[in-house]
């Protein structure tokens, strides 16, 4: 009001304030660049060193080889046994975690009272918060002996001829990995089920459906993409799980079972497959730990194979995460 008639100066104090503002802006942008750099470095490190490895060991030999022996002569870098080991542990864990996690999610979202939910949910999160090395320790010192006692009891009371578990075995590793990924399945699935609109449930009740029917026939199908996304994420987590498996499953890759043939159709005896769970079942992650605890000075083929296995693992888990994201975004579009 004092400078009536004059054009006001709105240029602001372009000195100190601008310096301060842009200092903070660029400093913060620099922080954000770090996450991009991390990704770039991961990919660069993996790809460059893996390329080095593949110049010594052909890709076909790596992906198609059936023997993995990086340190013992004759060296051999076939990744198939490790993939089989990973599959065994992952399937075993999924068999435990997917149904349990899904049922948990249904219970939490449809049946539990507010109070029960407020107690159960944080307790479930604890399952994912315990360090994985602790789970590995539990498997090796408590679960394996307990399972052996149980197997002995079954054998003696039912007269079965089940084999005992080795010191390192795939079964106990599957169990602990399964336990630790339960919350991953349950929390994401529950989110998906909670976001199913109540009007759908009421429509069901209006038609005379029971709570059981509404839960299984209406809520679960409506939340199916969220549930699928949680399954994929949990499986990807199991594939990448390291320490629990290192301790529980041992460092020996499983033997690839002999393929039999009946009427020209190749098959593997189910007993042979299940038998693999009683023995050591090294996964890709275990092989990496095994190599790294021996030789990380660089240069040797075994060292370089680390990055080839790492790249395989990275590609698999990244692909699963992306697929899970895409699937999850579908349910978000539907109901949000």
């Amino acid at each position, binding site marked *: 009001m004092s400078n009536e008639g004059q054009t006001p100066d709105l240029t602001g104090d372009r000195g100190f304030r601008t310096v*301060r503002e842009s200092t903070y802006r660029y400093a913060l942008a620099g922080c954000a660049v770090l996450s991009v750099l991390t990704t770039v470095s991961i990919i660069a490190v993996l790809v460059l060193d893996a390329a080095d490895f593949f110049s010594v060991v052909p890709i076909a030999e790596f992906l198609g080889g059936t023997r993995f022996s990086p340190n013992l002569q004759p060296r051999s870098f076939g990744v198939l046994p490790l993939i089989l080991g990973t599959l065994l542990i992952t399937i075993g864990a999924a068999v435990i975690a997917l149904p349990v996690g899904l049922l948990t999610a249904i219970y939490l979202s449809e049946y539990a009272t507010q109070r029960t939910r407020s107690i159960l949910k944080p307790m479930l999160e604890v399952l994912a918060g315990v360090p994985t090395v602790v789970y590995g320790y539990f498997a090796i010192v408590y679960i394996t002996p307990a399972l052996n006692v149980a197997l002995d009891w079954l054998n003696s009371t039912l007269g079965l001829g089940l084999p005992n578990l080795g010191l390192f075995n795939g079964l106990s590793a599957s169990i602990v990995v399964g336990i630790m990924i339960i*919350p991953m399945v349950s929390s994401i699935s529950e989110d998906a089920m909670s976001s199913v609109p109540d009007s759908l449930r009421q429509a069901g009740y209006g038609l005379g459906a029971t709570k059981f029917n509404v839960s299984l026939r209406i809520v679960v199908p409506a939340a199916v993409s969220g549930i699928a996304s949680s399954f994929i994420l949990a499986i990807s987590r199991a594939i*990448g799980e390291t320490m629990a498996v290192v*301790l529980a499953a041992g460092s020996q890759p499983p033997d690839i079972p002999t393929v039999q043939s009946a009427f020209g159709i190749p098959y593997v005896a189910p007993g042979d497959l299940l038998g693999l769970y009683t023995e050591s079942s090294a996964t890709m992650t275990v092989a990496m730990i095994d190599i790294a605890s021996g030789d990380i000075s660089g240069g040797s083929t075994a060292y370089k194979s680390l990055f080839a296995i790492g790249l395989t693992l990275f590609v698999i888990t990244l692909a699963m995460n992306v697929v899970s994201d895409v699937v999850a975004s579908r349910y978000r579009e539907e109901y949000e």
Partner: protein
Amino acid sequence: MATQTPTQETTEFGEVSRLKGIAFKYTSFAASIVGILALGVLLAYVFWDAFGLESAGTTWYLSYTVTLLVPLLAFFAYARTRPDVVAGAFELFSLTLGGVMLTVATVIVLSVIASPPVWFAYFLTVVGPAIGMYVYGQYNREATWVGLGILAAVVVGPVVGTLGLGTFSSLGAMLGAPGIYFLSLVLPGAGMAAFLAHDRLELSKRQSIGIGVGLPVLAIVGVPVVDMVPQIARSVWLIGLVMFGLPVGFTVVNTAQRRERWAAFAFPAIAILGFLLGEFVVGVVGATEPSPWLDWQYVTSGPSISNAAEAGLYPAIIGSVFLIVLVSVFTFVFGVGTAIYLEEYAPATGPLGTITRLVNVNISNLAGVPSVVYGLLGLGIFVNINAQLGPITYAGFGVGTVFTASLTLSLLILPIVVISAQEAIRSVPDSLRQASYGMGATRWQTIRNVVLPRSLPGILTGTILALGRAIGETAPLIMIGAATTKFSPPSGLFSKLTAMPMQIYAWAFQPSPDFRYGVVAAGVVTLLIVLLTMNSVAILVRNKYQQEAH
């Protein structure tokens, strides 16, 4: 089933079979608790082993059941329906544990990792000026240079401190360790206490000043008393007074101020009295006591590989504290910085918005990369690298060193910190930002004065939880070549380290049952107690925040 119809007159709706539904309900309930129960049993076993409870006699169990367990259960039964008492007891519990942990960590950082004179040098050049400027900024709001000044102190201070290390630390050596801690911890702590008393506990000005003056006086008066106890050094007394005394004093006064929470004091009272009474009874009756693996000897000695009775976790504990301090600094600065940039600066629409979205997707995918791959990253760019940039040769930070390990773990948890900080920042109502911009505040002023104060508790909770993840990680440490067994703690940023989970991993393959069921169990329990403390402090912060937000 629809077979029993009481009378013919009533309209018959029939009955739909509920059997399947009820069976399903209980099956799903069983599924929700099976994992928790399994973990509970395993934890019970490992505690049992770690504390050697097997060797305790029946009378020992009886005594403690009567003196400790039953009163505690009675307290829980009483508190079940009283949320105020639960909240009070939880605050007392987590801040006491947190105070112990903070004291241990500070003692380790200040007197084991850095020597007191070295700490004094950096206190003079970095911490002191930063605190001083912050306090001045609170007192004189006109001083707009304070933010940049603190930034400068944090960036330039270490350089000055390192250059003048000799001079400053000889100055510190003249003071002696207790003198250093009195100047650098007790006096700032006194200011902090007075501020908390006045601002948070709403005590009167006179009382607050009394507390501020009382703390240093207590520190000095306590010295002769402490000198009579040979186990407690003067330095430990001073550090403990600040790091344990402040949080515990705060929660005690905070609980005492609210009548409805008074009953919460019964919890620590029952725990302490019950324990002392139990000790007394056991001594009188002469019951066989347990022989715990987890004891003072365990946390203060090195990891013997042949003799289980002499084995300890000391170097690993120091290594873990080292890691957690560095990782928390790296991830807090970069994690919060990234989150602020993405939420407050980065454009959300247009072609640049696409880049922002890609960065966000990238971060969430980084959170899903297996930790062992981060180990490879650390191996590739911090260990086995040889890059020549003009005159500068970058050859990494060494195999399995403290610095390599903390950088690797920082990168590992950074995405988690960023995501939780983003959520906290997003939860600040937009109307507050608008109000600030409408008053002619700049972007940074709005962030600094409106967004950050409001989102800080959420950011802290997320960061502490992520640090919990870092402290339990093993695979990346193995990949970068951290030592499995190390007999002395790391002495500097570039010395090799081991950490608690590494030591557990190394011991778990020991064939002797003493190791398998004793020493390792004790290590697992130590690690779990640290995690429990961190998580309960994080939950406490979150609960406080939720109360204030409503």
